[in-house]
């Protein structure tokens, strides 16, 4: 009598496993809810509308930069220049605000587009490995920014343009952050674009099998080029949102976003080898990482310990994902 029962429960476990394998996003939502619950247990009364609003506010820059990183990783690449682009866009916007907000924002976005174009040219046309190409441009951008900051400082202290501050830190009805709308808009465009448009399919195709793509007549280099330009642009947007939220620009503003931007995508189930995944997972990944750091802040852990735990948990989550999805990456 107990044997069939055991068999049935084992069947149920297998069914659950299959379910999880088909929808790995469920695991991610589970992890997210677990972390939120943990915060609620540790500090009762923390979780509320304001807390959710603040979390989304802090997650928005990461979520937006992760969108670009997702697209690049879907083509089997990686963009290590995102952090430098975020910093550069933020700093340029802040230092140019003296000449008007529009000019400042446009220049900041132009920085992102230019770096994206450079990365794209290197990767798509000159066939440089993405890791090296983006590493090099990252160094160039960081160095150029240093020189720029030394030559521009006499025009007055950097001040964040009002419109950037509104988008980055503003809140409607004191609860809903303005950046949430921007993030949502980007998320919808990216998710729908990946699923429904020809270009979206080409991104998957180029990442999955570049040879087959070439034989099918796809101009793979163009797809790669456009993808890197989009990534640069989104990184610049993320930098603007970040500087708006923090309301101060410095030369290492975006540095801390390098690992999280990769981690959010990987935790979200996008294969670093390309052709597999999507933005929905990265979005939840970005939320998980943000909740995780707010959990550390609540626990008041010393910084080094925070860093160690953060790294360890990123590996753990990625490992859990690989196990449940049954995909070696």
């Amino acid at each position, binding site marked *: 009598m107990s044997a069939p029962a055991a068999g049935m429960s084992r069947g149920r476990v297998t069914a659950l496993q299959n379910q999880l394998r088909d929808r790995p996003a469920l695991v991610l939502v589970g992890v997210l809810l677990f972390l939120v619950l943990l915060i609620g247990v540790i500090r009762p009364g923390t979780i509320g509308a304001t807390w959710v609003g603040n979390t989304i506010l802090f997650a928005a820059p990461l979520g937006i930069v992760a969108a670009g990183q997702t697209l690049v990783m879907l083509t089997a690449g990686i963009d290590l220049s995102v952090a430098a682009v975020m910093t550069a866009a933020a700093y340029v916007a802040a230092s140019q605000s003296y000449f008007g907000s529009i000019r400042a924002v446009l220049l900041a976005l132009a920085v992102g587009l230019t770096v994206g174009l450079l990365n794209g040219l290197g990767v798509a046309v000159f066939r440089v490995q993405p890791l090296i190409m983006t*590493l090099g441009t990252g160094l160039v951008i960081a160095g150029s920014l240093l*020189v720029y900051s030394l030559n521009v400082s006499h025009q007055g202290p950097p001040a964040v343009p009002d419109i950037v501050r509104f988008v980055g830190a503003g809140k409607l009805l004191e609860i809903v952050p303005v950046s949430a709308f921007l993030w949502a808009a980007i998320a919808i465009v990216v998710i729908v674009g990946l699923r429904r448009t020809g270009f979206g399919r080409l991104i998957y195709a180029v990442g999955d099998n570049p040879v087959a793509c070439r034989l099918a007549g796809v101009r793979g280099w163009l797809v790669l080029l456009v993808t890197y330009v989009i990534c640069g642009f989104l990184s610049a947007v993320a930098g603007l949102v970040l500087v708006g939220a923090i309301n101060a620009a410095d030369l290492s503003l975006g540095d801390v976003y390098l690992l999280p931007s*990769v981690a959010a995508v*990987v935790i979200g189930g996008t294969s670093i080898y390309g052709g597999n995944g999507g933005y929905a997972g990265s979005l939840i990944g970005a939320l998980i990482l943000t909740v995780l750091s707010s959990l550390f802040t609540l626990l008041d852990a010393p910084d080094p310990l925070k860093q160690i735990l953060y790294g360890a948990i*990123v*590996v753990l989550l990625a490992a859990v994902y690989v196990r449940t999805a049954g995909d070696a*990456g």
Partner: protein
Amino acid sequence: MKVAAGKARAPQGPTFARFVRRNAWTLGTYALFLAVMGFTIAIHPDYGPYEVRSLVVGALPLAFCAVAQTCVVLGGGIDLSIGAMMAVANVLAAHYMLGRDFQTSVLIALLVLVGGTAAGGLNGVIALRTRVPDIVVTLAMSFVWGGVALLILPKPGGGAPDKFMELASGNIFTPWLPNGLILLIVIVAIIWIPVRFGRMGLALYAIGSDRTAAFRRGVRVGPTRVFSYALGGFFAACGGLALLMSTGIGSPLAGTIYTLSGVSAIVLGGVSLAGGKGGVTGPIVAAFVLTMVPADLILSGTDPNLGQVIQGCLIVLVVMAGGLAPLLRRRVARIQDEPVMSAG
């Protein structure tokens, strides 16, 4: 007699050509080194032992770091936590060596090397067991090791006995040959040559060039991967100690820039990031080039703040040039092929 010489040389001809073709990139790196050296001497006429010493001491950490990354990349992986591991080794040594005598310091250094090997091995085991891509694991581990370094030494401090620092900056034979260079060559030779020409090295190159094929030929892929990471950890620890020898102080953040410069050095040194191709001498020479170029430009009056820009441009341009060569060759081949194809 002429004929005999010609005959004797005949089989050598293609071999030599093949040697050049196979090692074109590495030879290019040597040429680049000589060119940069020539430029340095040209703009700096009284180039002497002091300059040689500061070059060697300055390049030593990067050279070890490049060797560390080479070991991992040859096996088809990549370790983005090497800079952080260097920092751990650096602060561990600086913390415990302060105020000790030379013998104790050497003992501590040996323990640090063992620890570095273990740390690198741990990276490898995690990458192997979790099946998470190497880049992700090691990027996350760079946070972990960075945190460990900060735990050991929250702010720059510590130190080492002068005699220990002499291991890099002193000289036994002539002022033109600093100990650091001897140290580098001896350590790399002792560790690398047995590996390179032994079973383990063969397995390392095999899993780097084609993991599946290597597995089917009976290479133990898992242990070899862990071995490559452990070797990387060992050389990263060497780099951390070299950093202590060159700065005389432990700094928990000093190592971080070395991860990226190390990757630059191996790319410049002709190691394929796809794995299985390259050696250690190219990256070491490249590390010296990367150390010399910014110094030269500052000497010749360029804005020192442009150092990072120059390094980035150098990497990108060199790799682009390297990518362009096969592209052109392919295009030429395609043009030559086309008439044949249309005829068939």
